[in-house]
């Protein structure tokens, strides 16, 4: 029978995936609503004879807007597909920047709801590592979510990556004012976080100010 720690981790991981999917569907539904209204607007214009052949630019403008929403939808689907495939294998070789980029894309709306700007500061020559991309995303998501809950509106949250000698560093840097009363959020016990990072052979530490630093070995353990 699965022990309690494994069960708790599995539950929290499922909850993380659920939150990502909820954010994704929210965003997609918005894009679809815009597409529907834009198509409806063209229909209205035709029915009411508002734009004539002499002024086709009005139609072209709406069609461009539809294309833009389709492109945004497609891009988000690409990120979700990559996110889903991160779980294909327990360990795999992956680029940390790419895995964090898709996480940020899927989380941006959640941050925007609190008027927090989610930014990336990735070092581009970062080597691929062999580890669990899904668990890394789970950890980074946890710290981002925790900071989103603590930060006041109009703050910034930066995800920075850098290669070290035999490892990769992911730094989560909050910039702005912290709320005196945190929004309610279910806390993940430190024991579980420590367990995950131990399994990945890395470490979690806190830098000066409020930074959180996740370090992962460049080679799998």
């Amino acid at each position, binding site marked *: 029978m699965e022990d309690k720690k494994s069960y708790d981790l599995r539950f929290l991981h499922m909850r993380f995936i659920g939150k990502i999917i909820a954010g994704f569907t929210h965003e997609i*539904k*918005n894009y679809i*609503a815009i597409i529907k*209204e*834009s198509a409806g607007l063209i229909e209205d214009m035709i029915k*009411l004879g508002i734009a004539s052949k002499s002024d086709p630019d009005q139609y072209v403008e709406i069609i461009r*807007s539809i294309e833009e929403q389709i492109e945004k939808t497609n891009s988000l689907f690409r990120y979700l597909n990559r996110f889903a495939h991160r779980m294909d294998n327990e360990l795999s070789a992956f680029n940390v920047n790419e895995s964090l980029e898709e996480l940020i894309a899927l989380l941006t709306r959640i941050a*925007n709801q609190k008027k927090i700007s989610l930014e990336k500061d990735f070092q581009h020559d970062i080597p691929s590592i062999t580890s669990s991309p899904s668990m890394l995303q789970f950890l980074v998501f946890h710290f981002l979510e925790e900071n989103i809950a603590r930060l006041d509106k109009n703050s910034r949250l930066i995800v920075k990556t850098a290669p070290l000698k035999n490892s990769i560093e992911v730094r989560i840097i909050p910039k702005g004012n912290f709320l005196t009363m945190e929004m309610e959020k279910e806390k993940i016990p430190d024991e579980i976080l420590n367990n995950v990072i131990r399994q990945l052979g890395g470490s979690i530490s806190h830098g000066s100010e409020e930074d959180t630093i996740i370090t992962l070995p460049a080679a799998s353990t």
Partner: protein
Amino acid sequence: MKQKEKDLKVLLVDDEVAFADTLAQRLKMRNLKVGTAHDGEQALSKIKEEEPNVIVLDLQMPGIHGMEVLREIKKAYPDIQVIVLSGHGTDKDEEEVRRLGGFDFLKKPADIDHLEYTIRKAFQKKIERTM
């Protein structure tokens, strides 16, 4: 009554600018006067300026949540009718909207004819309340 229908002013509140602008255009084609706001704070200040009779309100917006905006509107302007138009509202949200005095709860994407009908019905209620 016809004369009064000319007074129908709608404020459309949604953080998706493209959505709000397109929907506003469609409602204007149906002879409604429509203004837009893109977050709760902007909505509350536009209510003072534009004095709408009916507000179409999204729930999930940056800054003040739509539910909080609804609460503030009903407290300060109890006669204004608020239709919530949300892509993600749950049954619990719908219950809360009605408890706070919201006129109706519609899900995105809504049928334009149904939305227009609901707006006009909400306006009728506003007239009845102020008669």
